[in-house]
């Protein structure tokens, strides 16, 4: 029966790399309205099809590429897609989102999603053009970094407009935090989706398409986009001017900037420039010239290091040479940075975002912005997540400084905080699993820590073995709760940032949340704020659109109606997000990731030794109480976090009970 719903093609492609079979499915209106796209599709297919206990890097795992109702439509924020699989890093539900142009191109090529299963005997890539799918040989692409690989595919088809979602050498070598990137500067970064792709001998998915599905009301979509480009513009002006990097200095002042493996939240510097005027103000220069980064953090409550790597400095020093945006978006939050004699940077890989600056910069004690720009390019070329990579290197530096990793295991690398030379070298070794230290750190901080005992494990900044992004639970306690209960492990992409709701809660008013709360609050009211926001985020990642665009919940409801023709409501949409949250939890429970894994590592329960939040840690008793409240708010058992039957009825997920307690069949 043809699809009545607009905004979709109604077609989901399936490619089996073991057999070479390419098939098509048309799941119908009810499926689309229930799961919408993105994480909705991913959680559905992973739960139904990926056998419990399977090797994430084996052929039984499946890799799902998904767009949503809003992907590729002509309005700002629609250039997004999601990719998911069982994560080799966490052993549970894995998924991430990326911007750029691939999602739009894939959708125009005639499909709503692509499920890749099995594994190829030799390197291949998938080629999709206007409804046709082929498996192509990729022997000539295997081993290439991302830019030459993308160029080779474009040249092969004599079409420079092809978009290529791909792995770099890190994915080929199954680094557990390898990315799948597109457009060279957009990444599905978390959870090792690139390693899953590498395990299937799949180098990439190339797309070229010319036809969007019909939408119900294009006039409304265009009018709303016009509003965002005019009246709405002032709402995102800051992001366009300095990018996400603009928040780096403020982050340090709040104690929020990951510094030296999250031991500190502020980043003092050496020889910082004055805050006003061109000449350095001697009274304000940190007296840390002769101190190690650790000693500086312990003794100085200043932020010179953060100031050297913040977005404003990027602009003031001329390091910033341009900005870029994603499909149909005028925000242009992405950075383009300059090459220099010291570090040759290819601008096609873009410049560092806040996450990269925080995790690869301050978290490793590096205050050289040009070096961070270069590392950002190398991570892009190699296809590695800057969050997990920076956290893992920072962890190794602390362990090395404390003697927890013996010298002989460091393979000649002087992994001190702030040692740029060793820091750049270890990136390369990780990507190629070169030598004992490269191979060790390619498995992430938690697994590496297991080699060296409980003290080393305790320093790993992880939830469910996935490293924390550059946002600090000791500043934002609700965010810490969000990390604990996230289905993907520590992840800020479906989380709550307390500091945005201490003065006002305007964006949450449509959900009935009207009372601002302090960032360090962990009351049941905060748990409610977190639960509602997280479920909305899961919807956003299903629809799928960029959360940097200040679309209100009411506007998004209108956009979804205009795209699909559904007369939908905010109630229906947030239920979609809630469904994703519960379904991904059911996936994790089936894999053995119970409430026992919903906890923060010791580092974040320990008080800061210095800095703006000296003496502040996340209070364990309060955050565990907030976890009980969060479970209950979601209709999960307050102690075990297992969804109740009532919640399964509520979310139309009773079908999942047929799959309990575990799947033993292969297909």
């Amino acid at each position, binding site marked *: 029966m043809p699809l009545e719903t607009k905004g979709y093609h109604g077609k989901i492609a399936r490619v089996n790399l073991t057999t070479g079979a390419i098939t098509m499915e048309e799941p119908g209106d009810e499926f689309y309205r229930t799961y919408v796209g993105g994480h909705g599709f991913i959680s559905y297919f992973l739960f139904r099809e990926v056998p419990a206990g399977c090797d994430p890097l084996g052929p039984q795992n499946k890799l799902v590429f998904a767009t949503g109702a809003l992907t590729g439509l002509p309005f700002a924020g629609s250039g997004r897609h999601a990719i998911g699989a069982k994560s080799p890093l966490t052993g549970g539900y894995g998924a991430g989102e990326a911007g750029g142009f691939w999602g739009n191109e894939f959708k125009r090529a005639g499909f709503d999603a692509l499920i890749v299963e099995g594994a190829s005997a030799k390197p291949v890539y998938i080629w999709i053009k206007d409804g046709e799918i082929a498996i192509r040989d990729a022997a000539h692409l295997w081993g290439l970094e991302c830019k030459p690989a993308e160029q080779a595919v474009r040249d092969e088809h004599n079409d420079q407009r092809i978009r290529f979602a791909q792995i770099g050498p890190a994915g080929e070598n199954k680094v557990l935090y390898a990315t799948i990137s597109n457009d060279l500067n957009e990444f599905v970064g978390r959870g090792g989706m690139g390693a899953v792709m590498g395990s299937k001998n799949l180098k990439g998915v190339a797309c070229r398409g010319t036809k969007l599905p019909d939408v119900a009301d294009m006039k409304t979509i265009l009018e709303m986009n016009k509003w965002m480009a005019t009246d709405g513009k*002032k709402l995102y*002006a*800051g*992001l*366009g*001017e*300095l*990018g*996400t*990097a*603009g*928040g780096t*200095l*403020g*982050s340090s*002042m*709040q104690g929020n900037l990951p510094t030296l493996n999250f031991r500190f939240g502020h980043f003092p510097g050496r020889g910082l420039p004055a*805050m*006003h005027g061109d000449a350095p103000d001697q009274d*304000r220069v940190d007296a840390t010239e002769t101190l190690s980064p650790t000693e500086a953090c312990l003794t100085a*409550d*200043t*932020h010179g290091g953060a100031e050297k790597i913040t*977005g*404003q400095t990027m602009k003031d020093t001329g390091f910033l040479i341009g900005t870029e945006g994603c499909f149909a978006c005028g925000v242009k939050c992405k950075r383009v940075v300059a090459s220099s004699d010291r570090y040759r940077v290819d601008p096609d890989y873009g410049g560092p*975002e*806040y*996450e990269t600056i925080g995790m690869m910069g301050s978290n490793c004690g590096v205050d050289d912005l040009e070096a961070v720009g270069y590392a950002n390019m190398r991570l892009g070329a190699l296809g590695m997540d800057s969050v997990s990579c920076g956290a893992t290197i920072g962890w190794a530096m602390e362990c090395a400084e404390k003697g927890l990793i013996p010298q002989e295991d460091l393979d000649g690398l002087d992994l001190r905080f702030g040692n740029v030379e060793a820091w750049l070298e270890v990136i390369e070794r990780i990507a190629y699993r070169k030598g004992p230290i490269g191979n060790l750190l390619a498995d992430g901080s938690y697994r590496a820590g297991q080699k060296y005992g409980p003290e080393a494990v305790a320093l790993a900044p992880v939830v469910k073995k996935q490293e924390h992004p*550059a*946002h600090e639970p000791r500043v934002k306690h609700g965010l810490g709760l969000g990390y604990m209960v996230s289905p993907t492990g520590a992840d*800020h*992409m479906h989380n709550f*940032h307390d*500091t*945005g709701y201490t*003065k*006002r809660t305007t964006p949450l008013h449509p959900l009935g949340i009207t009372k601002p709360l302090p960032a360090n609050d962990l009351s049941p009211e905060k748990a409610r704020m977190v639960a509602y926001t997280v479920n909305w985020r899961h919807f956003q990642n299903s629809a799928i659109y960029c*959360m*940097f665009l200040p679309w209100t919940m009411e506007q998004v409801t209108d956009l979804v109606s205009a795209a699909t023709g559904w007369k939908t409501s905010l109630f229906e949409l947030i239920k979609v997000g809630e469904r994703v949250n519960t379904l991904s939890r059911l996936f994790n429970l089936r894999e053995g990731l119970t409430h026992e894994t919903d906890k923060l590592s010791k580092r974040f329960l320990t008080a800061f030794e210095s800095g*703006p939040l000296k003496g502040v840690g996340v209070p364990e008793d309060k955050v565990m109480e907030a976890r009980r409240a969060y479970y209950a708010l979601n209709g999960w058992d307050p102690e075990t976090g297992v969804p109740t039957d009532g919640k399964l009825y509520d979310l139309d997920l009773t079908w999942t009970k047929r799959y309990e307690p575990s799947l033993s069949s292969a297909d």
Partner: protein
Amino acid sequence: MEGSSLVIHVRAQGHLKQFRPDKQERFSLELPAEATVRLLIEASGIPWDEVGLVAVNGRQVEESQVLASGDDVMLMAPMEGG
């Protein structure tokens, strides 16, 4: 009243300068004695809810902070994620 006013140096980071009449990022304001950060923001013409974080002499402060003459104030926009 002579001797009781404060001169405060301000840097409005990022897009916050767009709210200033001359669009300049760095400027000085003369404020009455005992002026708070909140009063400074109001006097600057930058909307209160556009300001995510305020630092005085390099340290984050609350908006109730009382200013002293010669203080360097940095106003930053709220920023999350990345």
